């Protein structure tokens, strides 16, 4: 590993850790300062009993100074004890464990669709004839304005009456069953990002098509397909990757809507449920996880970009 690489990765990881720490503090403070009494939420919606409330405040350390509560929470996060849910009275970790796989699978599925279909559509619309280009353009324009819940409702309408290719609810079991159930949510989640990636890909390929080095290759008599693969796509990869990376990172927050719409038991639907019920312990944890996922994916994208274009490792901060 060269010195430039070590410096690059060190910087990236450093920024990552600092961002996560500050994000965790921000999330903690937000919920600490929220109006309302967590003890009442924990006691459940019945006649509040002072003895019970006092006991709860002791058990959950609600009367400790805020920095102590923060540090205790942080230590717990690092060691794996993520606190106790205010509503379900079991460990947050167990609630998350039960649902993390579904969400991870959904995000990966959607990511695959975004990159696979998006890039293909972009390339096709750039390299094929006018008609294909126009159709894909119209489709992407409409799709970019289609939020997850809109696509979800349309899909539910189509597949709940008449066609029944895919189940419209639930998480399923077993890997294939899960993928079957996650197909419609993945489509709903990925459609607008897919459109965005397709349009960026098309623009990038367009630009590369007419670039100098491609003309050079063409003049040397290289076959069109080889030119596409080796020159155009390779250099177009960077912006495509960046956009894909940002899209994938944005997918995590979109799971809240996709899971809720299709009744999938995942982290997103748990977050929505917890926010409505003011289960701050769960909201804290899932928000932190989503922020972490977002930031980590971005670092990965930067790293992959640097692998493709090592000049980026020399970069010294932002312009």
């Amino acid at each position, binding site marked *: 590993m060269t010195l430039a690489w070590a410096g690059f990765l060190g910087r990236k990881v450093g920024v990552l850790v600092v961002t996560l720490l500050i994000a965790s503090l921000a999330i903690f403070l937000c919920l600490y300062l929220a109006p309302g009494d967590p003890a009442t939420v924990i006691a459940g919606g019945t006649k509040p009993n002072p003895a019970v409330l006092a006991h709860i405040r002791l058990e959950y350390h609600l009367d400790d100074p805020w920095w102590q509560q923060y540090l205790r929470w942080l230590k717990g996060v690092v060691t794996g004890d993520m606190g106790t849910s205010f509503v379900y009275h079991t460990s947050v970790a167990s609630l998350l464990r039960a649902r993390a796989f579904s969400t991870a699978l959904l995000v990966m599925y959607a990511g695959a669709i975004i990159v696979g279909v998006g890039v293909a559509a972009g390339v096709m619309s750039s390299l094929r004839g006018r008609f294909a280009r126009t159709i894909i353009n119209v489709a992407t324009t409409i799709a970019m304005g289609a*939020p997850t*819940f809109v696509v979800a409702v349309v899909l539910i309408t189509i597949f709940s009456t008449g066609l029944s290719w895919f189940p419209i609810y639930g998480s399923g079991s077993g890997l294939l069953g899960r993928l079957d159930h996650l197909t419609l949510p993945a489509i709903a989640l990925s459609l607008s990002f897919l459109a965005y990636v397709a349009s960026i890909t098309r623009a990038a390929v367009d630009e590369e098509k007419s670039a100098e080095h491609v003309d050079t290759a063409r003049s040397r008599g290289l076959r069109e397909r080889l030119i596409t693969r080796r020159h155009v796509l390779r250099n177009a990869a960077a912006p495509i990757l960046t956009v894909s990376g940002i899209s994938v990172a944005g997918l995590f927050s979109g799971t809240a809507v996709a899971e809720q719409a299709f009744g999938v038991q995942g982290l997103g639907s748990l977050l929505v449920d917890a926010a409505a019920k003011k289960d701050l312990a769960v909201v804290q944890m899932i928000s932190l996880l989503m922020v972490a996922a977002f930031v980590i994916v971005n670092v990965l994208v930067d790293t992959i970009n640097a692998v493709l274009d090592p000049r980026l490792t020399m970069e010294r901060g932002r312009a």
Partner: protein
Amino acid sequence: MTELSKVAVRKRQPLLLRRFATMTPLIRIASAVLLLIVLAAVLAPLIAPHDPTTPNALDSFGGPSGSHLLGADASGRDLLSRLIYGARLSLAGPAVVVLLMVPVGVLLALLAAWRGGITDGVISRVIDILFAFPGLILAIVAVAMFGAGFWAPVIALTVSYVPVLARVLRSVALKERNLPYVAALQVQGVSAIRIAVRHLIPNLLPMITVQAGVAFGYAMLDLAAISYLGLGLQPPTADWGVMVSEGQSSVIEGFPQESLYAAVMVLVTVVCINLIGGWFAERHDISEADL
């Protein structure tokens, strides 16, 4: 073109009609549709055929008819009227977000670009941290803190979008600030504020407009999603996001109209905004990479 004449050209605004004439048919249609929707929102009490909240048990789930042009929902409320009134709230939320976001974003960008040094460093770091929070997550956390409703998600989304605007404006502002005419004005003793207001901001306007348009579109999508999740405006309020979610249980009964019509309204509005925004950006030489 010299720097000075570039400035001069940018400050002159073409007439509205002239602008309309340079639009392609598609953009003309998009503008007309958007204008219609805004008018509907503003004139709702005058043009809606029915009160959007009056239920009528007998009309429940009715199809299109003389009195209910688009049919009625599960409670017998007129769908067309609800869609028209829904435009008000569905447009108001994003409008508030943009109205709050622009002054704050411009201020931060100008501060960072003008002062430079530590101010710029601090502001840029804060912006970077805020970038790590997707808007939807911030809005959900805000709801967990303050309860569901109109304001918590709106404020949260404003906080989430300001960094985007600030970062983009900051780089443009930096470029502007380093142009010779600014140094010339400073030498003449013109105050920083005067330079900012009379020279910098007008030249940032095209970028601000484009960003405001982008943000409006995103805010509309995010706020509708939040209402759909039950964390924003609540039923029986007539708002497109709420209508999609309220109508979802009827989809399975064979009545997808409430959800679909409201969903289509969101889609059409955002697509129009995107199209117009893209056209505007092209006109003012703002490429995709700057967004």
